[in-house]
């Protein structure tokens, strides 16, 4: 287990540190639930001690009134500019689950056909399910709904629905057609995760879309020393996420390209040092 996996595991444990919740089926109600965690971690998970930024965004946007969720926006903007998709690669529990499943034996689809188009699919998901549908639900019925969580998010199904349904009989009685749909979506992604590296992150996750917008500017992440790069394509060849360019919106900063670059042109940004200076120093 390398350093990144240890940090992924630690962050998953910290996000879900409310151990009694897993034993009694009750979720944590402490004040820390008012703060968002950086990664995708359902706040209805019995162990969760913080709020999922995606769920919080939709809930505040269209809960009992339409309002701009300034607090959540400020939080995710701060996370984005500090770490970008470094969060996806190092601090997201659902990313860890996907990577663990990809290690299971089974057919592996190293190059996903249509990746170039599929990676734009998540932008549509983000706009439609995180922005448009919650607002539309409010405008139509007077009560908003977290459409992404309700209809798509397999993290919520796995981390919250499964343990809560197993431990709480009254909840099981409330299960309906949406529950069936959500379990179908979960099963679909679980199978995909065995065959494809992080399919949810790469093709669906709206949080990854947001963090990807800040990936090149973020304090933490991968950068390329352009003057040293010979465009040999090694980074693209070894990238498990099939990022076209190291450090772009698809890059989760796993660091495989850093180890593989024959020219040592790819590096992890040093928050204490300007990238330009680092480039000069490394020459």
């Amino acid at each position, binding site marked *: 287990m390398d350093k990144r996996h240890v940090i992924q595991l630690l962050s998953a444990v910290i996000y879900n540190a409310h151990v009694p919740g897993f034993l009694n089926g009750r979720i944590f109600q402490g004040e820390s639930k008012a703060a968002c965690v950086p990664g995708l971690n359902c706040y209805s998970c019995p162990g969760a001690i913080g709020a999922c930024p995606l*769920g919080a965004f939709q809930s505040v946007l269209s809960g009992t009134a339409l309002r701009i969720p300034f607090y959540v926006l400020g939080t995710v903007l*701060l996370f984005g500019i500090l770490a970008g998709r470094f969060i996806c690669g190092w601090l997201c529990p659902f990313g860890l689950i996907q990577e663990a499943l990809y290690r299971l034996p089974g057919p592996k689809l190293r190059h996903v056909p249509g990746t170039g188009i599929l990676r734009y699919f998540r932008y549509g998901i983000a706009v439609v399910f995180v922005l448009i549908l919650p607002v539309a639900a409010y405008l139509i019925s007077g009560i908003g709904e977290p459409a992404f969580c309700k209809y798509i998010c397999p993290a919520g199904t796995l981390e919250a629905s499964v343990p809560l349904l197993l431990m709480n009989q009254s909840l099981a009685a409330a*299960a309906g057609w949406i529950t069936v749909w959500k379990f179908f979506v979960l099963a679909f992604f679980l199978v995909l995760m065995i065959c494809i590296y992080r399919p949810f992150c790469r093709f669906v996750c709206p949080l990854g879309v947001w963090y990807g917008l800040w990936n090149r500017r973020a304090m933490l992440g991968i950068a390329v020393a352009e003057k040293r790069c010979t465009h040999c394509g090694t980074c693209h060849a070894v990238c498990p996420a099939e990022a076209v360019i190291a450090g772009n919106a698809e890059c989760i900063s796993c660091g495989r390209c850093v180890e593989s670059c024959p020219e040592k042109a790819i590096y992890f940004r040093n928050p204490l040092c300007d990238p330009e200076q680092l480039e000069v120093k490394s020459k």
Partner: protein
Amino acid sequence: MQRKNIWIYITAVVLLAIGLYRHEPAAVWQRAATICLECIGIG
């Protein structure tokens, strides 16, 4: 910290401050501290 990002940090802090002023953390807590059946697709 890259100097070109300073305005993004300032924007983030301003957004957080507005959110705190409007007591939005309470709204987040309210949703996160109770089982959100809708959020997890039950019911």
